[in-house]
């Protein structure tokens, strides 16, 4: 099984992406998903998401492969948007499929924790009220969330 990894400006379709992981097969008992969306905190007008073309896809493919090594997955999809994203719009999708629920749920949480700390994306916040823009700072709590997976199992979460 090869994970599906895409970095794109366009929105994604949760239902269609999920259906692709189960189409034509009857060995999938569990599909977990996570969708991260842009919140309108503090008068945010938009997020501008920048990435490192080439490295981003490599890094995500690497961690998706690690998820497949840690859990018995039958499918795995990661879609991350870049460009300008408005409040209420989706930013990132993680989908995992497995015969059993624990593998799907745990690998989905693993992947989104890692995406926060290990994939070369940067968010810039734009404000409408004359405050201009600012780069989002990395959060220590995100590092801690990613680190718990390194403690829990084999291998390193960072590519």
């Amino acid at each position, binding site marked *: 099984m090869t994970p599906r990894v895409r970095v794109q400006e366009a929105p994604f379709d949760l239902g269609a992406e999920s259906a692709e992981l189960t189409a034509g097969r009857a060995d999938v008992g569990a599909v977990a998903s996570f969708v*991260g969306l842009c919140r309108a905190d503090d008068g945010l007008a938009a997020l501008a*998401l*920048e*990435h*490192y073309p*080439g*490295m981003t896809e*490599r*890094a995500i493919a690497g961690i998706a492969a690690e998820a497949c090594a840690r859990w018995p997955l039958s499918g795995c999809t990661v879609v*991350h948007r870049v460009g300008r994203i408005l409040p209420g719009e989706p*930013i*990132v999708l993680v989908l995992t499929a497995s015969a059993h629920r624990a593998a799907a749920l745990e690998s989905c949480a693993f992947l*989104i924790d890692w*995406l*926060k*700390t*290990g*994939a*070369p*994306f*940067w*968010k*810039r916040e734009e404000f409408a009220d004359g405050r201009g823009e600012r*780069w*989002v*700072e*990395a959060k220590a709590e*995100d590092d801690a969330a990613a680190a718990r997976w390194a403690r829990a199992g084999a291998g390193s979460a*960072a*590519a």
Partner: protein
Amino acid sequence: MQVLYFAWVRQKVGVSAEEVSPPPEVADVAGLVRWLSGRSPGHAAAFANAGSIRAAVNQDFAAPDHRLSPGDEVAFFPPVTGG
């Protein structure tokens, strides 16, 4: 050697990429940071706080002591904030 900059590192340096030929004594990522800092006030500002900068060499995250070769692609950027 191709050097890439992202996010506020790119904004401070003023360009997103440049081709550089550091002298032979620039042996690793930390050495390249010191050498690049002398190229312009923008470079100096970008690298003023080395602890807030991350690096990748040939599209893999790299520590300051990572050894460099002439054909490497080296990138500098802030800690990532995706997801």
